[in-house]
């Protein structure tokens, strides 16, 4: 069959149908499936949009393209063996995932963590937060069409932080570092000095970001009063992390739960008043600055001592029956692990509370009535990683 004949035949079958749908016989709506392979869906994610012109009248997120059934896998392997899998949830910040899981298991078995290990955890978590926020802002501005310049600056700094991670944990992204009752390897003095040097360079980097972006009129025009999320809805919909604080709700699990040793550090929680994209952007910038102050304090005060609790077990780890929910303030929001033990070597139930997924609950509410271009931005400002959304 010739190409033309084939084409003609297909057209008769209805391939030539114009891409417009009728709704209620009134408005002609354009249905667009944004994703799963769209440049700005951060991976494989789909939004089924209905557009009136360029205005969004309906948005349905579709998940599951990256679903690996992480929880099912974890129920079949030992507690320790799930640790490297947590790296692969939110692969930008593996260390906070490690911490959340370790914290949940420590709650389950009542494990203590030595002081030095707690300090190392805080240092690594704050480094993770900085690099996550920097690259998430980079991605956001990339989606605004700045040809990746802020993203590349973010990656430049992230590279330095990842170098630190690699030197300590042996891997840049899949760190697999924390253990129940401490950390896997100790930091050397040289590593701490290198970390201090990186921290000294960070304020300059944040300044660079701010010069480049914060007062840019185009960025302000694009971000201000777009994608507004009211605080009541944010709380009700379980939004956590910078997104919740950008809506003006003072809820930072580091301050609420004081998990680890966060009560020893002096830091503030930046809050936004409008709950729009610009607030989310600025809250992330300001949180980076607060993280730098935490890092400075932690690197100054870090004590000596062991990094693993003497009673911690690597082999033959069998928690007594019971359950525990441990949560931390991961860079993207509340990352929780819910574990039920039946006394066996494997968890009976292992549940991840993914901030990325739950923060998407309000995506439609934020996007209704705005432009296609804004949908991309609003989606970017939520800051998700599909590895965590789909698990």
């Amino acid at each position, binding site marked *: 069959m010739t190409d033309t004949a084939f084409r003609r035949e297909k057209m008769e079958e209805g391939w030539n149908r114009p891409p417009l749908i009728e709704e209620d016989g009134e408005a002609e709506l354009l249905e667009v499936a944004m994703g799963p392979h769209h440049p700005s869906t951060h991976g494989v994610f789909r939004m089924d949009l209905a557009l009136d012109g360029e205005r969004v009248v309906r948005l349905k997120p579709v998940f599951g393209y990256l679903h690996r059934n992480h929880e099912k896998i974890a129920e079949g392997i030992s507690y320790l063996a799930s640790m490297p899998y947590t790296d692969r949830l939110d692969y930008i910040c593996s260390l906070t995932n490690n911490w959340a899981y370790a914290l949940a298991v420590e709650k389950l078995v009542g494990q203590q963590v030595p002081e030095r290990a707690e300090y190392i955890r805080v240092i690594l978590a704050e480094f993770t937060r900085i690099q996550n926020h920097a690259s998430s802002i980079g991605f956001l501005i990339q989606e605004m069409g700045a040809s990746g310049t802020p993203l590349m600056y973010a990656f430049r700094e992230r590279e330095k932080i990842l170098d630190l991670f690699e030197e300590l944990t042996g891997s840049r992204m899949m760190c697999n570092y924390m253990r129940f009752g401490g950390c896997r390897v100790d930091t050397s003095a040289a590593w701490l000095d290198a970390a201090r040097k990186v921290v000294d360079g960070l304020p300059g980097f944040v300044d660079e970001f701010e010069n480049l972006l914060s007062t840019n009129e185009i960025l302000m025009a694009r971000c201000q009063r777009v994608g507004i999320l009211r605080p009541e809805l944010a709380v009700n919909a379980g939004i956590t992390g910078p997104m919740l604080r950008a809506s003006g709700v003072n809820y930072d699990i580091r301050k609420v739960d004081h998990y680890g040793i966060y009560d020893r550090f002096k830091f503030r929680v930046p809050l936004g008043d409008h709950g729009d994209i610009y607030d989310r952007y600025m809250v992330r910038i300001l949180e980076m600055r607060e993280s730098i102050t935490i890092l400075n304090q932690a690197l100054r005060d870090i004590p000596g001592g062991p990094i693993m609790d003497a009673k911690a077990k690597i082999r033959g780890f069998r928690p007594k029956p*019971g359950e525990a*929910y*441990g949560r931390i303030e991961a860079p993207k929001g509340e990352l929780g692990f819910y574990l039920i033990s039946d006394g066996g070597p494997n968890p009976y139930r292992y549940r991840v509370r993914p901030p990325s997924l739950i923060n998407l609950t309000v995506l439609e509410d934020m996007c209704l009535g705005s432009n296609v271009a804004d949908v991309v931005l609003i989606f970017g400002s939520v800051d998700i990683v599909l590895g965590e959304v789909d698990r």
Partner: protein
Amino acid sequence: MKTMEEIKAAIEAAAPGAGVEIVPNPSPSGQHSLRIAPSHAVAVATFLRDDAELALDFLSNVTGVDWLDKEVTEKVKVTSTVTKTVDDVEQDVEETVEETRKRVQPGCLEVVYHLFSSALKHGPVILRMKTMNRTDQVELPSLTPIWRSAEFQEREVFDLYGVVFKGHPDLRRLLMWDEFKDHPMRRDYVDPDDYEYEPTPHDAVLTRANAHKAAEEAKAREGTGAGL
């Protein structure tokens, strides 16, 4: 924050007949939970959210748990009065004997809600609900109208465990595709044979995959239609 007993009392005062039951948690985490009757769940949830002292406005986590039917072997201390001769005198003595009994604990699907308060910064208060069984009576009331954050998580529980949430605005599969039949997170879920075709050092998987492949090819040869 109030203790579990106080919360229980408060709920029972606000929603009589809620059938609140404290589920103790023996682990060092000490996170005890409250089991509520599904029939009163919405009322209880509304109370917990709106009560000024509790103000549990933030539903963090919704989890499904699958409890299979299981045969429990438990040692029960049975106390009975036995007539014995002690010091040549017949006496009624209370004697405790440990008996090993077996019984089948019926399985169920359970949904666990972790509640926090963003205003008062306390928590977690853990709510649990049970279905009647694991097969046909798997309906529970949805708490999405009370807390929006349950929307995707209840869809996930529906998808992976098969709990049907009544009153959920948009109950579709979340992670698996719509045509998928089973609920993969259930404990008795069996992987499909074609789960892994790739040769691995684990011959069992490989054997199964090869068998599946062969069967499928045979099927295709017979012309009885596509495999899956």
